[in-house]
């Protein structure tokens, strides 16, 4: 097989923003931009269906396109398509240029694809920077509003600082091991000819800081609530899912198969980060009245759960991480999708009080939102439950009892604030008919279809997870 044909999905993802840019310069049309980005994301998917079975050769030294990378690229581009559909309705209500939004969005997904397929520090850093630089623009896209500018600048400065940590960590690891190629690094580490030097552990620590910033785990979570609140809601959905998912894919690949977690010190640092994220995320979410801020803290807690499965460095661990991530993608995209679709020109539906009595006006929407929140809380019959179940199983199988118990305790705390939102929706509607959000905006057909599809998937994977699980097993199986 020609090694370059394996690159086709990534090349197509890279061509999409380029084509979009040329089209924008000659013919500006919001609809056309949406169609091009959807096609650009769907083409690699269609190709992936054909190539997923064939074992692709590694494209030494920068990228490795194996079943694992292809699975994640498929997941990330599907999620991007959902975000594109949600953005269409959102951007229609916004003044100014709309087409560039999709340019940045597709470019960010290209960066994510490079990240998941990277086999070298260079491609890791390039992918991360393509992602980050596009995200600066996306977060501050509504540049006439104060909050968007604030969160954009916050994200810019903190992401740049964390990139500096990451680069320094890479330099330290290179100084110690003499290679930046992950495959070579793995074999050097696996040989275990000597104790890890301070240089190497310091390097790992700095790389964890850089990765932890993107994942928004405690103590690198400070940016998350403000950026989540200030960014346009579709971008928040993107930040929660695609940007974090790509980083998790990379961590999983090299945490488990790169021998990173064989070092006790690295594993215990990750354990501390996981526990802090679970508890701080869930406890601070209790105090929030803004739904987007609440979901930011909830996301911090969920990444803590995910880290537990990453630490459970076993085969079940990597299956659990991937399944959990898919479930989390479906749920988060659904919730942020509903927030986006309920908002109108006058007001964004991001206060919990906006949802008071929603059930009596929009029973279907509030039913779907309740299901999504149940899934986040990990109630049975939803994909979130199955994901959490696998994470717990992975933890138990690796004898991580302390982490498992802490996970359960913090999930119970989390239950409270998810249920609080659900209860608010079923309260009687506010007396004052002139409440800021009437939530009467009708969903467009694509929005409705996407949200209904996500809800169906949520229940389907909650009741019958076997097909997804076997796909994940096939994909993760190609790693080792």
């Amino acid at each position, binding site marked *: 097989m020609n090694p370059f044909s394996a690159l086709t999905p990534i090349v197509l993802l890279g061509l999409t923003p*380029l084509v979009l*840019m*040329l089209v*924008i*310069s*000659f013919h500006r049309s919001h609809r056309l931009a949406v169609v091009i980005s959807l096609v650009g994301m769907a083409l690699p998917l269609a190709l992936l269906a054909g190539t997923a079975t064939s074992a692709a050769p590694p494209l030494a030294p920068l990228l490795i396109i194996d079943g694992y990378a292809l699975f994640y690229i498929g997941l990330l581009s599907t999620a991007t398509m959902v975000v594109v559909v949600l953005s269409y309705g959102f951007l229609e209500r916004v003044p100014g240029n709309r087409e560039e939004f999709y340019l940045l969005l597709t470019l960010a997904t290209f960066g994510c694809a490079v990240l998941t397929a990277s086999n070298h520090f260079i491609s890791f850093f390039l992918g991360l920077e393509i992602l980050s630089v596009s995200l600066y623009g996306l977060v501050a896209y509504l540049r006439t509003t104060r909050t968007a500018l604030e969160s954009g600048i916050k994200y810019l400065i903190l992401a740049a600082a964390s990139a500096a940590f990451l680069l320094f960590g890479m330099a330290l690891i290179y100084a110690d091991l003499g290679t930046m190629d992950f495959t070579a690094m793995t074999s050097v580490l696996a040989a275990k000819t000597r104790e890890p030097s301070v240089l190497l552990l310091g390097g790992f620590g700095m790389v964890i800081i850089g990765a932890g910033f993107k994942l928004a785990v405690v103590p690198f979570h400070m940016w998350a609530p403000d950026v989540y609140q200030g960014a346009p809601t579709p971008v928040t959905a993107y930040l929660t899912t695609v940007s974090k998912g790509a980083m998790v894919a990379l961590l999983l690949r090299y945490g488990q198969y790169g021998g990173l977690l064989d070092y006790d010190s690295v594993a215990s640092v990750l354990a501390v980060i996981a526990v802090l994220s679970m508890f701080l995320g869930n406890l601070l979410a209790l105090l929030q009245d803004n739904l987007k801020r609440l979901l930011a803290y909830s996301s911090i807690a969920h990444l803590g759960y995910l880290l537990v499965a990453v630490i459970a460095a076993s085969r079940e661990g990597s299956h659990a991480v991937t399944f959990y991530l898919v479930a989390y993608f479906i749920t988060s995209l659904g919730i942020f999708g509903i927030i986006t679709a309920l908002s109108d020109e006058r007001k964004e539906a991001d206060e919990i009080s906006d949802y008071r009595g929603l059930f009596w006006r929009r029973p279907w929407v509030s039913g779907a939102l309740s299901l999504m929140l149940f899934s986040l809380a990990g109630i049975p019959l939803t994909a979130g439950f199955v994901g959490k179940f696998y994470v717990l199983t992975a933890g138990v199988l690796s004898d991580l009892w302390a982490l498992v118990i802490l996970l359960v305790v913090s999930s119970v705390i989390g239950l409270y604030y998810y249920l609080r939102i659900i209860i608010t929706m079923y309260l009687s509607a506010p007396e004052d008919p002139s409440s800021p959000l009437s939530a009467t905006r009708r969903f467009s057909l694509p929005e409705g279809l996407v949200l209904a599809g996500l809800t169906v998937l949520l229940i389907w994977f909650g009741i019958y997870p076997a097909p997804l699980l076997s796909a994940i097993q096939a994909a993760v199986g190609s790693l080792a």
Partner: protein
Amino acid sequence: MSDAYLPILLIFGVSALNAVFMVALSHILNPRRPTPQKAMPYESGMIPLGDTRARFSVKFYLVAISFIVFDLEAVFLIPWAVEMRALGWSGFVAASIFVAVLTAGLVYEWKKGGLDWD
């Protein structure tokens, strides 16, 4: 091994302390009689004109960005040009793709009016 570096550490420490000590001492001991002339920023004898925080047109920002892009293009193309024969056709194709991507950017900038001054 670390013992050998101890004198260097000492020199660093002593020089840092010395610098801080001299500045702090002159700050504490000197008499202060400020006049408007003394408070003025020192511009090699010139009397300063206006504020340093002058406003300038945001258009220069676009010029600076374009400059950086094409500056970097030169940084990548010159090494390729030097080794053009050794890199062969694959090098040529790679460089062409690079230039094509940048050209797409230029087309976008041009059409968007980034090259018009007014």
